């Protein structure tokens, strides 16, 4: 456990600079974008006021502005996607950075006097924590954006929705930050299983190299097939008498099977097959 925590701290520190970079990028673009679009909206109001329009005329001519409008914009979705893609990219890079180029740090990691699976779990936990952190930061930014809008635009021209309602409206934010605890845990769990499947595929490639690429893709394909079995089998076999919650339970079960098989296989690969 001690070695795992040390490795986790070590792995997290290695990602820290890039991670902060993602946060800064999100902050600048999202907050900057919110300020600019709020000011532009206010400019439109002022223009109408200068033309002699009253409050009622303005609210008739202009749709009210709020956080929801911000979330559909490029300056909001762009940095969020960049953050998500960076973490997805890092899911692979977290392994390959120890192998590629002149870097032979993998020699050290694999010869530490601790279980090699600790290296695996530390990398997994790093991805999980950074993913969670990104979501929390997004929520924090949305709260600031809401304040920014409230500061610039008068209440009468705003469409004030509470944060959770905004999250609920947008698919991407709802997937990342479901308002329901069970759903939140479900998505996190699926996220962990998917990451483990990716890690196993990376270890397959690192063990079998060229042909390993094919095996790795096969591994991902088979994992998807098993995980989504409750969904495709219902369509394939033409039955649809299961309730939504039952399907979710079955997906949880199939994902757990994938998780256990992937961990067992990864344990075998990292101890017996992987090559530096």
């Amino acid at each position: 456990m001690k070695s795992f925590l040390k490795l986790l701290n070590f792995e997290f520190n290695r990602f820290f600079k890039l991670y902060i970079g993602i946060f800064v990028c999100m902050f600048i673009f999202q907050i900057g974008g919110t300020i600019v679009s709020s000011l532009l909206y206010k400019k439109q109001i002022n223009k109408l006021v200068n033309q002699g329009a009253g409050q009622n005329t303005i609210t008739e001519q202009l749709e009210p502005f709020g956080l929801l409008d911000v979330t559909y914009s490029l300056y909001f979705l762009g940095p969020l996607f960049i953050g998500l893609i960076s973490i997805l990219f890092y899911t692979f890079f977290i392994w390959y950075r120890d192998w590629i180029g002149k870097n032979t740090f993998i020699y050290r990691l694999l010869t530490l006097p601790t279980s090699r699976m600790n290296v695996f779990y530390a990398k997994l936990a790093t991805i999980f924590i950074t993913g969670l952190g990104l979501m929390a930061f997004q929520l924090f930014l949305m709260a600031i954006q809401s304040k920014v809008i409230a500061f610039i635009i008068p209440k009468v021209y705003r469409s004030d929705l509470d944060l959770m309602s905004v999250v609920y409206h947008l698919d991407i934010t709802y997937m990342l930050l479901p308002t329901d605890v069970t759903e939140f845990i479900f998505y996190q769990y699926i996220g962990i299983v998917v990451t483990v499947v990716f890690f196993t595929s990376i270890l397959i490639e690192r063990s079998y190299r060229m042909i390993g690429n094919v095996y790795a893709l096969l591994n991902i394909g088979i994992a998807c097939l098993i995980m989504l079995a409750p969904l495709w089998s219902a369509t394939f076999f033409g039955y649809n008498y299961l309730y939504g919650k039952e399907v979710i339970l079955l997906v949880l079960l199939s994902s757990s099977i994938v998780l256990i098989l992937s961990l067992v296989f990864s344990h075998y690969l990292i101890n017996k097959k992987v090559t530096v």
Partner: protein
Amino acid sequence: MIEVKNIKKSYGKKQVLNGVSFTADKGEITCLVGINGSGKTTILNAIMNLTPIKSGEILIDGAELTKKTYEKIAYIPDTITMLSSMRIEDAFLFMQDYYTAWNEKRAEDLLTFFKLTKDEKIQHLSKGNKAKVNMILGLALDVDYILMDEPFSGIDIFSREQIADVFTSHLIEDRGVIITTHEIQDIEHLIDQVVLLDDGIVVKQFNAETVREEEGKSIIDVMREVYRP
């Protein structure tokens, strides 16, 4: 004792090791000699379980390698095994964090011996100094066995002399060392056992001192006989 028993290994269709067997005792320097691609590095990697073998067995003090074995065997590959962004002191701290066998005092002594300072960043070091840091990371572990892969490769003559001096010091005494090198003349007088490899097999294993005394031949003489008959 490190026992390598009939190990076989192939990369695709190419058979790199075809039944290699030899032993390396504690307190002795065993040198693996062979032309490029003869499988010297692969053997060291296999001993450290850094590459799988097709068949055969590797025992360290009579047992198979486990995670605890890494506290009694150190590997010094031909490139540095620390992050280049680290300072030397960070690398030492990392070693101290994970290895109970880490001997900070010895690390400091070696740093002084090699005339290096702790605050230097690894990425700013010359190739020779990187090799020295790499060597410190292995030698400062209180381990029974040390594996060194081409410690003199691409290093200037003065650094080579410094590294060769390590072999005559107390730092190596009583430990079992397996070394691969092309620059055999640098440490010829220090080697106890020689393992000559060719085409994935051990073509000859001999005691350097015995051959010197009984046949009047140097290691290089024997190598000529084997590789250029």
